């Protein structure tokens, strides 16, 4: 009886059983040059984040700018360095699911916090009446 490994070994010509090459036959990873370009872009974004932190004139829009820049870095690392852009879509769904739950926790806590302040506000009005 053929073993599990044997069946994998015979899975087809040109494959390397039990390795990522099987998956990556259809999902080519970027070249080293692309990785270096991505890293340079990420470093530049980080530099921009730090520079705008010190620019007084941008203080009004600092937080949205930082959120956008860090989101860009996040997506770039996940897409290129973690190969999610090139990998099976289902892996992306798994990770996005985790992110959505995390974001929901974030939103939920903020809603509770806001709700608490509303209760305080209503109580304050009741006391004045």
């Amino acid at each position: 009886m053929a073993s599990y490994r044997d069946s994998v070994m015979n899975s087809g010509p040109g494959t390397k059983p039990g390795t990522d090459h099987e998956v990556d036959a259809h999902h080519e990873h970027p070249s080293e040059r692309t990785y270096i370009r991505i890293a340079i872009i990420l470093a530049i974004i980080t530099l921009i984040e730090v520079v705008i932190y010190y620019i007084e004139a941008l203080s009004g829009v600092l937080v949205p700018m930082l959120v956008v820049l860090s989101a860009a870095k996040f997506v770039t690392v996940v897409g290129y360095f973690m190969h999610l852009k090139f990998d099976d879509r289902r892996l992306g769904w798994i990770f996005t699911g985790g992110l959505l739950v995390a974001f929901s926790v974030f939103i939920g806590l903020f809603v509770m916090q806001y709700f608490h302040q509303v209760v305080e506000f209503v109580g304050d009005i009741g006391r004045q009446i």
Partner: protein
Amino acid sequence: MAAQAPVLNAPQTHGVGPDAGHGHMDHPPTSTGIDHRKMLMWLFLASDCMFFGALIATYSIYRGRSEDVGVGPYPSELIDIPYTSVSAFVLLMSSLTMVLALAALQKNDIRGSRLWIFATAALGAVFLGGQYFEFTEFYHEGLSLQTNMFGSTFFTVTGFHGLHVLIGVIWLVTLLFVSLRGGLRQDDSLDLEIAGLYWHFVDIVWIVIFTLIYLIPYGEAHSEEGGEHALRLLHLGAAIIPGL
């Protein structure tokens, strides 16, 4: 059991997605067509998102409480942006060395992969050293886990991230030793890719932490006004809850 045999003995192709119906026999023989270890790592990373999501959300709702209550030292007095920026840069570059290690191994460049794995672990160790120095500095300035809400949440979030980095460094050093003993070859590149996924995740968590904890400015410390604000909240609470 007989019904499962074909699943185990026959290589699977994607039933859905862009590769469906191509008939290529070049995917691992799993029910999903995705290597189980890789799938498991992504599931773990998704769960770790929830873990850090909870920590970061908790940090966010307590952000600025130290100033409100008037118990220092405050983040605006402690945080050193240039210093932390270098740490962020170091961790970012470690992600580059990690993908270069994987690319080298996939090209059967074993020496190159060892070099980049070592570089990644070294950069991770530099980051950890920087974090240790930062923690020590903060502690000498009077900030501890018990001092105020900033201390509690800051050390918890960054401490757990540091623990993840430490685990990553240990993992990479282990892989380096395995490689030096000849156990990490081109055929084993998935082992390195999975370690790389973990390492990049640690990097993206730091991207969020760096922005949220360090770069988004804190309000100025105002102990008297903060104290008054806290007292007002207490009075409000007493008015709302009878018998307090």
